[in-house]
């Protein structure tokens, strides 16, 4: 069901901004789709294009050296604001497969993991160094190895990172989490039987 993430080596794209919110990642008018695909068109729309719809040449995603990059390197509290999973779908549709930042909003972080996108959390000083390297020498490659939990910067600098073991397994194997949960449906049924006795009012049908 979901996309796997194992490893990649790709151009790193620096986005040196803090508190990048999901409205900036994908504006609300692109949320009217009932599909998960095609959202890359609206990614960072207001930052990529000017009022006339022309590309802003200085925005990193528009610079030729960063084209085709798959690793977005950003600053603190990345993905804050709205819960819209469209933000992750837009990043992936555009070609990104991993984000590197000192911190993320909780919902965005979850949404990444559900879609096979790797959110790498590194100490602020290490992210700062990566951003500076990518800004100083555009086009540098970043290597990410999920199994070994290590990221390599353009100059070969090595950054180990931590990840929740279950999330790691899901990413490596592309597990269908719903199928996995449904394999414990007996536990869910047992819980419901017990709860119905204690709090019967919570099983009232909302239809009426």
């Amino acid at each position, binding site marked *: 069901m979901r996309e796997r993430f194992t490893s990649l080596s790709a151009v790193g794209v620096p986005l040196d*901004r*803090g*508190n990048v*919110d999901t*409205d*900036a990642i994908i*504006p*609300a*008018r692109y*949320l*009217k*789709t*009932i*599909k998960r695909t095609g959202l890359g068109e609206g990614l960072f729309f*207001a930052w990529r294009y000017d*009022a006339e719809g022309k590309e802003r040449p200085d925005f990193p995603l528009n610079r030729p050296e960063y084209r085709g990059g798959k690793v977005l390197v950003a*600053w*603190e*509290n990345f993905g*804050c*604001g*709205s*819960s*819209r*999973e469209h933000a*992750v779908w837009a990043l992936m549709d555009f070609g990104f497969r991993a984000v590197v930042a000192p*911190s*993320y*909003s*909780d*919902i965005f972080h*979850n*949404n990444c993991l*559900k*879609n096979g996108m790797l959110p790498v959390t590194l100490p602020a000083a290490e992210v700062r160094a990566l951003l500076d390297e990518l800004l100083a020498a555009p086009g540098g490659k970043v290597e990410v190895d999920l199994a070994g939990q290590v990221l390599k910067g353009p100059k070969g600098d090595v950054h180990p990172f931590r990840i*929740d*073991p*279950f999330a790691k397994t899901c990413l490596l194997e592309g597990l269908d*989490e*719903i*199928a996995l*949960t*449904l394999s*414990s*449906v007996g*536990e*869910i049924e047992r*819980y*419901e039987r017990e*709860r119905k006795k*204690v*709090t*019967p*009012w*919570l*099983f*009232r049908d*909302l*239809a*009426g």
Partner: protein
Amino acid sequence: MATLFEKIWDRHVVMRRGDDVLLYVDRHLVHEVTSPQAFEGLRQAGRAVRRPGSILAVPDHNVPTTPERAVRIDDRESREQIEALRRNALGTGIPLYDISDPRQGIVHIIGPEAGLVQPGIAVVCGDSHTGTLGAFGAIAFGIGTSEVEHVLATQTLWQKMPRQMRVAVTGALRPLVTPKDVILAVIAKIGAAGGTGYAIEFSGDTIRRMSMEGRMTVCNMTIEAGARFGLIAPDGITFAYLEGRPLAPPPGQWDAAVSCWKGLPSDPDAAWDREVALDTSSLEPHVTWGTSPQDALPVGGAVPDPAAQADPGERARMRRALEYMGLSPGKRLTDIPVDKVFIGSCTNARIEDLRAAAAVAKGRKVAPGVTALVVPGSGLVKRQAEEEGLDKVFRDAGFEWRLPGCSMCLGMNPDRLKPGERCASTSNRNFEGRQGPGGRTHLMSPPMAAAAAIAGRITDVREVAR
């Protein structure tokens, strides 16, 4: 010795897997924007909705707020998304408050009105402002679409226990200072990421005196401080709000429910990972100047100078914010003119919000050149406001009186700002482009927004109302 959050959490654990628990979800609210892909996923996998009767669906983000919506919605994609919600709800047996239903409204407003949000429950919605519902003493949180699909199929979610933060709010609020000012001050104090990884319980005498409407405003914006969960211990005010509502515990189970709820508040010796205190006895009405909700200041203040900021990252962020907002350091907030005024949203579109704004608007006129919208949060709020004559107060003053929906909070429906327009807004986010591409948002309370409409600029409501 457990917190309110921990007590509710423990009652919802179905099973454990390492640090993760499978959390049972009692109630699930669904709107048209974040659900279509979840229903599509179920169909593709041939899965059923586990408990349709635990879910309530409503269209709110896309709906126009003008009367023509009853006959047509011009925007094809919006129309299709609303139709998809209808199809998905009807096809799976999920109750729906459709666009013409008198109970239709903003998802976070209609759940409490129906009485389906109760102390001690776990409730989710594919919307970050679901924390609003924590005001009832519930675990309420926003989730992404994949998680919506997981809940539809299993009635559960794998979750990690968040850290516990208590924000103690004390002191009597001065006249015309509101719960909105309290939460803006909290966010300014702890920052837009200060609550990341936490559940925040709001406590203290200021909170205890607040109505359910005020408590919902506070919990609504917890996510703007980074916390997915905001919650408040249930008390007599909570129980009185709920009693007799259509989906509250029925009379035969009411006493049992209340006695269960009375055991929920955090124990005196509960352990907190972080504690924050805010004395509100001298709190001023707050207004945001920038593009993050943490950029809030008392209305008597001035636009801050990025040069005075020591941290280079924050300095750069402030410079970009000021450039986007078209503001210079040192400008007094009360010298900032507005083009539009929006009174509405899941933050501030309940009856008390409209009463507070109407009290300021009464007998006054919206300044020339300013367009001001009042958008009740639900059909029930609208009806009550009309019974109280608030619609007439607003109309006489030159405000537009609209139909319920998310409206100008988020730029998904026809109500939005044009590039460069500046808005005094009672909503929750002042992000770049949030209210429409290029639009500039100043967050504030309903009375402050009404005062801005009348003065044509940001103003201290206490001067207008004097």
